[in-house]
Protein backbone atom coordinates (compact mmCIF):
# COMPACT_ATOMS: atom_id res chain seq x y z
CA UNK A 1 0.00 0.00 0.00
CA UNK A 2 1.15 3.49 -0.86
CA UNK A 3 1.01 6.28 1.69
CA UNK A 4 0.45 9.87 0.47
CA UNK A 5 0.55 12.77 2.94
CA UNK A 6 -0.85 16.14 1.85
CA UNK A 7 -0.29 19.34 3.83
CA UNK A 8 -0.73 23.06 3.27
CA UNK A 9 -2.42 26.16 4.62
CA UNK A 10 -6.22 26.43 4.85
CA UNK A 11 -7.97 27.01 1.50
CA UNK A 12 -4.80 26.17 -0.45
CA UNK A 13 -6.65 23.61 -2.55
CA UNK A 14 -5.44 20.42 -0.81
CA UNK A 15 -8.74 18.65 -1.30
CA UNK A 16 -8.94 19.75 -4.95
CA UNK A 17 -5.52 18.17 -5.54
CA UNK A 18 -6.58 15.02 -3.65
CA UNK A 19 -9.74 14.80 -5.73
CA UNK A 20 -7.58 14.61 -8.87
CA UNK A 21 -5.36 11.95 -7.25
CA UNK A 22 -8.39 9.85 -6.33
CA UNK A 23 -9.88 10.31 -9.81
CA UNK A 24 -6.67 8.97 -11.35
CA UNK A 25 -6.12 6.03 -8.97
CA UNK A 26 -9.68 5.08 -7.98
CA UNK A 27 -9.83 2.07 -10.31
CA UNK A 28 -6.28 0.76 -9.94
CA UNK A 29 -5.34 1.46 -6.32
CA UNK A 30 -8.56 1.52 -4.28
CA UNK A 31 -7.60 4.65 -2.30
CA UNK A 32 -8.71 5.26 1.29
CA UNK A 33 -8.77 8.76 2.72
CA UNK A 34 -8.21 10.21 6.19
CA UNK A 35 -8.81 13.86 7.00
CA UNK A 36 -7.35 15.39 10.13
CA UNK A 37 -8.91 18.71 11.06
CA UNK A 38 -9.32 20.85 14.14
CA UNK A 39 -13.03 21.36 14.71
CA UNK A 40 -15.01 20.69 11.56
CA UNK A 41 -14.47 18.92 8.25
CA UNK A 42 -16.75 17.78 5.45
CA UNK A 43 -14.23 16.49 2.92
CA UNK A 44 -14.56 12.86 4.04
CA UNK A 45 -18.30 12.83 3.36
CA UNK A 46 -17.90 14.65 0.04
CA UNK A 47 -15.18 12.34 -1.25
CA UNK A 48 -17.04 9.24 -0.08
CA UNK A 49 -20.15 10.36 -1.90
CA UNK A 50 -18.28 11.42 -5.03
CA UNK A 51 -16.01 8.41 -5.50
CA UNK A 52 -17.53 5.73 -3.28
CA UNK A 53 -14.20 5.21 -1.50
CA UNK A 54 -13.63 4.55 2.22
CA UNK A 55 -13.03 7.80 4.08
CA UNK A 56 -12.58 8.83 7.69
CA UNK A 57 -11.96 11.95 9.68
CA UNK A 58 -10.54 12.74 13.05
CA UNK A 59 -10.83 16.02 14.95
CA UNK A 60 -7.76 17.12 16.84
CA UNK A 61 -9.69 19.55 19.08
CA UNK A 62 -7.27 21.01 21.59
CA UNK A 63 -4.36 19.12 20.06
CA UNK A 64 -2.43 20.40 17.05
CA UNK A 65 -3.73 18.51 13.98
CA UNK A 66 -0.20 17.46 13.11
CA UNK A 67 0.27 16.02 16.63
CA UNK A 68 -2.95 14.19 16.04
CA UNK A 69 -1.80 12.92 12.66
CA UNK A 70 1.33 11.43 14.17
CA UNK A 71 -0.69 9.83 16.98
CA UNK A 72 -3.20 8.12 14.72
CA UNK A 73 -1.14 7.34 11.62
CA UNK A 74 -0.19 3.82 12.68
CA UNK A 75 -3.86 2.97 13.36
CA UNK A 76 -4.88 4.59 10.09
CA UNK A 77 -2.45 2.39 8.15
CA UNK A 78 -3.94 -0.71 9.81
CA UNK A 79 -7.46 0.53 8.99
CA UNK A 80 -6.57 1.03 5.33
CA UNK A 81 -4.76 -2.31 5.15
CA UNK A 82 -7.81 -4.10 6.54
CA UNK A 83 -9.85 -2.47 3.79
CA UNK A 84 -7.30 -3.83 1.30
CA UNK A 85 -6.70 -0.30 0.04
CA UNK A 86 -3.82 0.18 -2.37
CA UNK A 87 -3.30 3.75 -1.26
CA UNK A 88 -3.91 5.75 1.91
CA UNK A 89 -4.21 9.50 1.45
CA UNK A 90 -3.86 11.57 4.61
CA UNK A 91 -4.84 15.23 4.51
CA UNK A 92 -3.65 17.35 7.39
CA UNK A 93 -5.18 20.72 8.12
CA UNK A 94 -1.82 21.81 9.44
CA UNK A 95 -1.88 24.75 11.78
CA UNK A 96 1.20 26.86 12.28
CA UNK A 97 2.76 25.55 9.02
CA UNK A 98 6.20 25.14 10.62
CA UNK A 99 5.54 21.46 10.87
CA UNK A 100 6.67 18.55 8.78
CA UNK A 101 3.91 15.99 8.77
CA UNK A 102 5.71 13.92 6.13
CA UNK A 103 7.08 10.53 7.07
CA UNK A 104 9.45 8.02 5.61
CA UNK A 105 7.88 5.51 3.19
CA UNK A 106 5.29 8.12 2.18
CA UNK A 107 4.98 10.56 -0.70
CA UNK A 108 4.76 14.07 0.80
CA UNK A 109 2.91 16.86 -1.00
CA UNK A 110 2.99 20.52 0.07
CA UNK A 111 0.12 22.48 -1.44
CA UNK A 112 0.61 26.25 -1.79
CA UNK A 113 -1.71 28.69 -3.52
CA UNK A 114 -0.09 30.98 -6.12
CA UNK A 115 -2.04 33.85 -4.55
CA UNK A 116 -0.41 33.60 -1.15
CA UNK A 117 2.30 36.23 -1.57
CA UNK A 118 5.99 36.01 -2.33
CA UNK A 119 7.12 35.58 1.27
CA UNK A 120 4.81 32.68 2.06
CA UNK A 121 7.27 29.95 0.93
CA UNK A 122 9.78 31.36 3.43
CA UNK A 123 7.17 31.33 6.16
CA UNK A 124 6.31 27.72 5.41
CA UNK A 125 9.90 26.59 4.85
CA UNK A 126 9.75 23.33 6.87
CA UNK A 127 6.43 22.37 5.28
CA UNK A 128 7.98 22.64 1.82
CA UNK A 129 11.55 21.59 2.54
CA UNK A 130 10.79 18.00 3.47
CA UNK A 131 8.06 17.38 0.87
CA UNK A 132 8.60 15.39 -2.33
CA UNK A 133 6.62 17.84 -4.41
CA UNK A 134 5.31 21.39 -4.06
CA UNK A 135 2.00 21.77 -5.83
CA UNK A 136 1.18 25.40 -6.65
CA UNK A 137 -2.56 25.83 -7.02
CA UNK A 138 -4.80 28.62 -8.34
CA UNK A 139 -2.28 29.52 -11.04
CA UNK A 140 -5.19 30.63 -13.21
CA UNK A 141 -5.68 33.60 -10.85
CA UNK A 142 -2.28 35.20 -11.42
CA UNK A 143 -0.37 36.40 -14.46
CA UNK A 144 2.19 34.11 -16.05
CA UNK A 145 5.05 36.35 -14.88
CA UNK A 146 3.78 36.27 -11.30
CA UNK A 147 3.41 32.49 -11.43
CA UNK A 148 7.04 32.25 -12.49
CA UNK A 149 8.16 34.71 -9.81
CA UNK A 150 6.33 32.64 -7.16
CA UNK A 151 8.18 29.59 -8.44
CA UNK A 152 11.49 31.43 -7.90
CA UNK A 153 10.36 32.30 -4.35
CA UNK A 154 9.85 28.59 -3.64
CA UNK A 155 13.21 27.75 -5.18
CA UNK A 156 14.89 30.32 -2.96
CA UNK A 157 13.74 28.21 0.01
CA UNK A 158 14.23 24.75 -1.49
CA UNK A 159 16.33 24.97 -4.67
CA UNK A 160 15.66 21.53 -6.13
CA UNK A 161 12.11 20.74 -5.14
CA UNK A 162 9.76 19.35 -7.77
CA UNK A 163 7.31 22.21 -8.45
CA UNK A 164 4.00 21.41 -10.11
CA UNK A 165 1.77 24.30 -11.16
CA UNK A 166 -1.91 23.62 -11.53
CA UNK A 167 -5.45 24.77 -11.70
CA UNK A 168 -6.40 21.87 -9.44
CA UNK A 169 -10.13 22.22 -9.97
CA UNK A 170 -9.57 21.36 -13.64
CA UNK A 171 -6.53 19.19 -13.01
CA UNK A 172 -4.38 21.16 -15.46
CA UNK A 173 -0.71 20.16 -15.29
CA UNK A 174 -1.19 17.55 -12.55
CA UNK A 175 -0.05 14.69 -14.79
CA UNK A 176 3.49 15.20 -13.46
CA UNK A 177 2.32 14.78 -9.85
CA UNK A 178 0.30 11.68 -10.70
CA UNK A 179 3.30 10.15 -12.49
CA UNK A 180 5.52 10.80 -9.46
CA UNK A 181 2.97 9.16 -7.12
CA UNK A 182 2.72 6.20 -9.50
CA UNK A 183 6.45 5.67 -9.43
CA UNK A 184 6.76 6.04 -5.66
CA UNK A 185 7.20 2.74 -3.75
CA UNK A 186 4.62 1.44 -1.30
CA UNK A 187 5.12 0.99 2.45
CA UNK A 188 7.78 -1.67 3.05
CA UNK A 189 7.51 -1.93 6.84
CA UNK A 190 4.90 0.12 8.66
CA UNK A 191 6.63 -0.52 12.01
CA UNK A 192 9.64 1.52 10.95
CA UNK A 193 7.84 4.60 9.57
CA UNK A 194 9.03 7.78 11.24
CA UNK A 195 8.75 11.52 10.74
CA UNK A 196 11.15 12.97 8.20
CA UNK A 197 12.01 15.94 10.33
CA UNK A 198 11.87 16.91 13.95
CA UNK A 199 8.81 19.11 14.25
CA UNK A 200 8.54 21.91 16.82
CA UNK A 201 6.21 19.79 18.88
CA UNK A 202 7.75 20.05 22.37
CA UNK A 203 4.92 20.53 24.84
CA UNK A 204 5.28 23.92 26.47
CA UNK A 205 3.50 25.39 29.44
CA UNK A 206 1.13 27.24 27.11
CA UNK A 207 0.17 23.91 25.54
CA UNK A 208 -0.83 22.60 28.95
CA UNK A 209 -3.09 25.56 29.64
CA UNK A 210 -1.10 28.32 31.40
CA UNK A 211 -2.50 31.61 30.12
CA UNK A 212 -0.12 34.21 31.60
CA UNK A 213 1.79 36.23 29.03
CA UNK A 214 5.56 36.73 29.17
CA UNK A 215 8.33 34.16 29.25
CA UNK A 216 8.95 34.89 32.95
CA UNK A 217 5.78 32.92 33.75
CA UNK A 218 6.74 29.85 31.76
CA UNK A 219 9.41 27.17 31.71
CA UNK A 220 10.67 24.64 29.22
CA UNK A 221 10.67 26.12 25.71
CA UNK A 222 10.90 29.88 26.33
CA UNK A 223 11.88 32.85 24.18
CA UNK A 224 12.53 36.43 25.22
CA UNK A 225 12.00 39.02 22.47
CA UNK A 226 15.73 39.53 22.03
CA UNK A 227 16.23 35.93 21.00
CA UNK A 228 13.06 35.68 18.98
CA UNK A 229 15.01 35.35 15.72
CA UNK A 230 15.82 31.77 16.65
CA UNK A 231 13.64 30.52 13.84
CA UNK A 232 12.79 26.88 13.43
CA UNK A 233 13.62 25.70 9.92
CA UNK A 234 12.50 22.07 9.96
CA UNK A 235 15.84 20.42 10.73
Amino acid sequence: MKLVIVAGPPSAGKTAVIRQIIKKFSKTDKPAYLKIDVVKAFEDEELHEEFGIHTRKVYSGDLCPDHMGIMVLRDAISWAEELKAGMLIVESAGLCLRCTPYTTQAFGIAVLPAVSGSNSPLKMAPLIALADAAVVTKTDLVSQAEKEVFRECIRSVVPNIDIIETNAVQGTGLRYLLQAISKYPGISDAETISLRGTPPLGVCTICIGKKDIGWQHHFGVIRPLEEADNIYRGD
Partner: protein
Amino acid sequence: MYDELAYELTVLPGTNKDGEKEGFDRIIIRPGDTLSIVGATGSGKSAFVNDIEVLAQNDTVTGRSILINGEEPSEDLVRDPAKKPIALITQNTRVIADLTVARFLALHMQARDTGAQSLIARTIDLANEFTGEKIAESMRMTALSGGQTRSILIADAILIGQTPILLLDEVENAGINKERVVSCIREYKKSVIFVTHDPYLALITDKRVIMKNGAVAGVLEPGDRERAILQTVTGMDAFLWELREKIRGGELISDPVEAQSTRKKAGVPA
Protein backbone atom coordinates in the same frame (compact mmCIF):
# COMPACT_ATOMS: atom_id res chain seq x y z
CA MET B 1 17.01 30.68 -21.86
CA TYR B 2 14.82 28.83 -24.34
CA ASP B 3 16.50 27.35 -27.43
CA GLU B 4 16.74 29.67 -30.40
CA LEU B 5 14.82 27.19 -32.52
CA ALA B 6 11.80 27.87 -34.63
CA TYR B 7 8.65 26.91 -32.80
CA GLU B 8 5.57 25.82 -34.69
CA LEU B 9 2.46 25.39 -32.60
CA THR B 10 -0.35 23.00 -33.46
CA VAL B 11 -3.71 23.24 -31.73
CA LEU B 12 -5.66 19.97 -31.75
CA PRO B 13 -9.42 20.19 -31.28
CA GLY B 14 -11.27 19.77 -27.99
CA THR B 15 -14.96 20.12 -27.36
CA ASN B 16 -17.44 22.98 -27.12
CA LYS B 17 -19.49 23.74 -24.01
CA ASP B 18 -21.97 21.00 -24.93
CA GLY B 19 -19.21 18.40 -25.21
CA GLU B 20 -19.33 18.24 -29.03
CA LYS B 21 -16.06 18.01 -30.92
CA GLU B 22 -14.73 21.24 -32.44
CA GLY B 23 -15.07 21.58 -36.20
CA PHE B 24 -11.42 21.78 -37.21
CA ASP B 25 -8.64 19.28 -37.75
CA ARG B 26 -5.74 21.34 -36.50
CA ILE B 27 -4.70 24.99 -36.37
CA ILE B 28 -1.03 25.57 -37.09
CA ILE B 29 0.74 28.71 -35.94
CA ARG B 30 4.06 29.16 -37.72
CA PRO B 31 6.98 31.36 -36.59
CA GLY B 32 6.16 35.02 -37.25
CA ASP B 33 2.41 34.40 -37.75
CA THR B 34 -0.07 36.86 -36.29
CA LEU B 35 -3.48 35.68 -35.17
CA SER B 36 -6.48 37.30 -33.59
CA ILE B 37 -9.07 35.48 -31.54
CA VAL B 38 -12.50 37.10 -31.77
CA GLY B 39 -15.98 36.27 -30.52
CA ALA B 40 -18.60 37.32 -28.01
CA THR B 41 -17.74 37.51 -24.32
CA GLY B 42 -17.87 34.04 -22.80
CA SER B 43 -17.23 32.34 -26.15
CA GLY B 44 -13.94 30.79 -25.00
CA LYS B 45 -11.29 33.21 -26.29
CA SER B 46 -9.26 33.37 -23.10
CA ALA B 47 -9.55 29.61 -22.62
CA PHE B 48 -8.01 29.20 -26.11
CA VAL B 49 -4.85 31.18 -25.26
CA ASN B 50 -4.72 29.66 -21.80
CA ASP B 51 -4.60 26.19 -23.40
CA ILE B 52 -1.57 27.35 -25.38
CA GLU B 53 0.16 28.86 -22.34
CA VAL B 54 -0.13 25.72 -20.20
CA LEU B 55 0.61 23.52 -23.25
CA ALA B 56 -2.58 21.59 -22.51
CA GLN B 57 -2.65 17.84 -23.03
CA ASN B 58 -6.37 17.16 -22.78
CA ASP B 59 -6.17 18.39 -19.15
CA THR B 60 -8.07 21.67 -19.33
CA VAL B 61 -11.77 22.36 -19.49
CA THR B 62 -11.70 22.46 -23.32
CA GLY B 63 -9.95 19.12 -23.82
CA ARG B 64 -7.57 20.59 -26.42
CA SER B 65 -3.98 19.44 -26.89
CA ILE B 66 -1.07 21.57 -28.04
CA LEU B 67 1.88 20.24 -30.03
CA ILE B 68 5.23 21.96 -30.54
CA ASN B 69 6.91 21.25 -33.86
CA GLY B 70 4.38 18.48 -34.43
CA GLU B 71 5.07 16.59 -31.20
CA GLU B 72 3.82 16.47 -27.64
CA PRO B 73 6.02 19.04 -25.85
CA SER B 74 8.73 17.63 -23.60
CA GLU B 75 8.42 17.96 -19.81
CA ASP B 76 11.15 20.64 -19.85
CA LEU B 77 9.25 22.87 -22.25
CA VAL B 78 6.11 22.64 -20.13
CA ARG B 79 7.61 22.99 -16.67
CA ASP B 80 10.76 25.08 -16.89
CA PRO B 81 9.98 28.76 -17.51
CA ALA B 82 13.51 29.18 -18.84
CA LYS B 83 12.69 26.76 -21.67
CA LYS B 84 9.08 27.68 -22.31
CA PRO B 85 8.80 29.52 -25.64
CA ILE B 86 5.51 31.22 -24.71
CA ALA B 87 4.63 34.38 -22.80
CA LEU B 88 1.02 35.18 -21.92
CA ILE B 89 -0.32 38.54 -20.81
CA THR B 90 -3.66 37.75 -19.22
CA GLN B 91 -6.50 40.19 -18.67
CA ASN B 92 -5.55 40.05 -15.02
CA THR B 93 -3.97 43.35 -14.03
CA ARG B 94 -3.63 42.58 -10.36
CA VAL B 95 -0.36 41.46 -8.84
CA ILE B 96 -0.34 39.83 -5.42
CA ALA B 97 3.43 39.66 -4.90
CA ASP B 98 4.40 42.34 -2.41
CA LEU B 99 7.64 43.24 -4.19
CA THR B 100 9.15 46.32 -5.74
CA VAL B 101 9.07 46.53 -9.54
CA ALA B 102 12.85 45.99 -9.66
CA ARG B 103 12.73 42.91 -7.38
CA PHE B 104 9.80 41.41 -9.28
CA LEU B 105 11.64 41.78 -12.58
CA ALA B 106 14.88 40.45 -11.08
CA LEU B 107 13.11 37.30 -9.83
CA HIS B 108 11.41 36.82 -13.18
CA MET B 109 14.76 37.22 -14.94
CA GLN B 110 16.12 34.49 -12.66
CA ALA B 111 13.16 32.24 -13.55
CA ARG B 112 13.58 32.86 -17.26
CA ASP B 113 17.37 32.70 -17.02
CA THR B 114 17.83 35.75 -19.21
CA GLY B 115 19.98 38.82 -19.34
CA ALA B 116 21.91 41.11 -17.09
CA GLN B 117 20.76 43.60 -14.47
CA SER B 118 20.64 46.36 -17.11
CA LEU B 119 17.54 44.64 -18.51
CA ILE B 120 15.53 45.84 -15.52
CA ALA B 121 15.99 49.50 -16.38
CA ARG B 122 15.34 48.80 -20.08
CA THR B 123 12.14 46.93 -19.23
CA ILE B 124 10.84 49.79 -17.09
CA ASP B 125 11.76 52.29 -19.84
CA LEU B 126 9.84 50.23 -22.40
CA ALA B 127 6.82 49.92 -20.08
CA ASN B 128 6.85 53.69 -19.72
CA GLU B 129 6.42 54.01 -23.50
CA PHE B 130 3.10 52.15 -23.16
CA THR B 131 1.68 53.83 -20.08
CA GLY B 132 0.80 57.38 -19.08
CA GLU B 133 2.16 58.12 -15.64
CA LYS B 134 5.68 56.80 -15.20
CA ILE B 135 6.66 53.65 -13.36
CA ALA B 136 9.77 53.76 -11.16
CA GLU B 137 11.77 50.70 -10.10
CA SER B 138 11.27 51.40 -6.39
CA MET B 139 7.46 51.31 -6.69
CA ARG B 140 5.66 48.28 -5.31
CA MET B 141 3.97 46.04 -7.85
CA THR B 142 0.81 46.09 -5.72
CA ALA B 143 0.65 49.89 -5.94
CA LEU B 144 0.66 50.08 -9.76
CA SER B 145 -2.54 50.88 -11.63
CA GLY B 146 -4.14 48.36 -14.00
CA GLY B 147 -2.62 50.08 -17.05
CA GLN B 148 0.82 50.35 -15.45
CA THR B 149 0.73 46.68 -14.44
CA ARG B 150 -0.29 45.66 -17.95
CA SER B 151 2.51 47.82 -19.41
CA ILE B 152 5.16 46.34 -17.16
CA LEU B 153 3.99 42.79 -17.91
CA ILE B 154 4.10 43.38 -21.67
CA ALA B 155 7.58 44.94 -21.48
CA ASP B 156 8.61 42.03 -19.24
CA ALA B 157 7.33 39.49 -21.78
CA ILE B 158 9.19 41.16 -24.64
CA LEU B 159 12.54 41.88 -22.96
CA ILE B 160 12.81 39.45 -20.04
CA GLY B 161 10.69 36.56 -21.31
CA GLN B 162 12.33 36.90 -24.74
CA THR B 163 9.97 34.23 -25.99
CA PRO B 164 9.27 33.80 -29.71
CA ILE B 165 5.52 33.44 -29.05
CA LEU B 166 3.48 36.12 -27.35
CA LEU B 167 -0.16 35.79 -26.29
CA LEU B 168 -1.98 39.02 -25.47
CA ASP B 169 -5.43 38.88 -23.91
CA GLU B 170 -7.35 42.11 -24.56
CA VAL B 171 -4.29 44.32 -24.68
CA GLU B 172 -6.51 47.23 -25.79
CA ASN B 173 -8.00 47.50 -22.29
CA ALA B 174 -6.49 49.48 -19.44
CA GLY B 175 -5.85 52.53 -21.62
CA ILE B 176 -2.32 51.74 -22.72
CA ASN B 177 -0.79 52.76 -26.05
CA LYS B 178 -1.63 49.72 -28.16
CA GLU B 179 -0.08 51.10 -31.40
CA ARG B 180 3.24 51.39 -29.58
CA VAL B 181 2.81 47.81 -28.30
CA VAL B 182 2.08 46.56 -31.82
CA SER B 183 5.06 48.34 -33.38
CA CYS B 184 7.27 47.01 -30.60
CA ILE B 185 6.11 43.45 -31.23
CA ARG B 186 6.87 43.92 -34.95
CA GLU B 187 10.30 45.27 -34.11
CA TYR B 188 11.09 42.13 -32.09
CA LYS B 189 9.56 39.82 -34.75
CA LYS B 190 7.29 37.77 -32.50
CA SER B 191 4.60 35.27 -33.33
CA VAL B 192 1.65 36.88 -31.69
CA ILE B 193 -1.89 35.99 -30.79
CA PHE B 194 -4.29 38.76 -29.81
CA VAL B 195 -7.49 37.97 -27.99
CA THR B 196 -9.40 41.10 -28.89
CA HIS B 197 -12.62 43.04 -29.28
CA ASP B 198 -10.71 45.80 -31.09
CA PRO B 199 -11.31 46.10 -34.87
CA TYR B 200 -7.83 47.52 -35.50
CA LEU B 201 -6.04 44.61 -33.79
CA ALA B 202 -8.35 42.09 -35.45
CA LEU B 203 -7.66 43.58 -38.89
CA ILE B 204 -3.85 43.76 -38.67
CA THR B 205 -3.43 40.02 -38.08
CA ASP B 206 -2.85 37.40 -40.80
CA LYS B 207 -5.53 35.04 -39.50
CA ARG B 208 -8.68 35.45 -37.48
CA VAL B 209 -10.04 32.67 -35.29
CA ILE B 210 -13.75 33.00 -34.53
CA MET B 211 -14.99 31.55 -31.25
CA LYS B 212 -18.51 30.45 -30.35
CA ASN B 213 -19.89 28.42 -27.45
CA GLY B 214 -16.42 27.51 -26.19
CA ALA B 215 -15.23 26.21 -29.57
CA VAL B 216 -13.50 27.45 -32.71
CA ALA B 217 -16.31 28.28 -35.16
CA GLY B 218 -14.07 29.25 -38.08
CA VAL B 219 -10.69 30.54 -39.21
CA LEU B 220 -10.47 33.45 -41.68
CA GLU B 221 -7.45 34.31 -43.80
CA PRO B 222 -8.44 37.66 -45.29
CA GLY B 223 -5.25 38.23 -47.32
CA ASP B 224 -5.52 41.61 -49.08
CA ARG B 225 -9.29 41.77 -49.05
CA GLU B 226 -9.45 43.88 -45.91
CA ARG B 227 -6.75 46.38 -46.82
CA ALA B 228 -9.14 49.24 -47.54
CA ILE B 229 -11.03 48.94 -44.27
CA LEU B 230 -7.77 48.57 -42.34
CA GLN B 231 -6.65 51.92 -43.72
CA THR B 232 -9.88 53.56 -42.61
CA VAL B 233 -9.73 51.99 -39.15
CA THR B 234 -6.09 53.01 -38.71
CA GLY B 235 -7.10 56.61 -39.38
CA MET B 236 -10.08 56.44 -37.04
CA ASP B 237 -7.92 54.92 -34.35
CA ALA B 238 -5.31 57.65 -34.65
CA PHE B 239 -8.09 60.24 -34.45
CA LEU B 240 -9.58 58.63 -31.36
CA TRP B 241 -6.18 58.27 -29.70
CA GLU B 242 -5.44 61.96 -30.18
CA LEU B 243 -8.89 62.89 -28.91
CA ARG B 244 -8.44 60.60 -25.89
CA GLU B 245 -5.09 62.22 -25.09
CA LYS B 246 -6.70 65.67 -25.22
CA ILE B 247 -9.54 64.61 -22.95
CA ARG B 248 -7.11 62.93 -20.57
CA GLY B 249 -5.00 66.09 -20.57
CA GLY B 250 -7.98 68.10 -19.32
CA GLU B 251 -8.75 69.94 -22.56
CA LEU B 252 -12.24 71.12 -23.44
CA ILE B 253 -13.12 69.86 -26.93
CA SER B 254 -15.41 72.68 -27.99
CA ASP B 255 -14.11 73.29 -31.48
CA PRO B 256 -15.52 70.79 -33.98
CA VAL B 257 -13.26 72.30 -36.67
CA GLU B 258 -10.19 71.40 -34.71
CA ALA B 259 -11.54 67.93 -34.21
CA GLN B 260 -12.30 67.90 -37.92
CA SER B 261 -8.73 68.87 -38.82
CA THR B 262 -7.36 66.14 -36.59
CA ARG B 263 -9.73 63.84 -38.39
CA LYS B 264 -8.47 64.96 -41.79
CA LYS B 265 -4.86 64.74 -40.70
CA ALA B 266 -5.52 61.17 -39.66
CA GLY B 267 -6.95 60.48 -43.09
CA VAL B 268 -10.47 59.73 -41.95
CA PRO B 269 -13.23 60.46 -44.42
CA ALA B 270 -15.81 62.87 -42.98
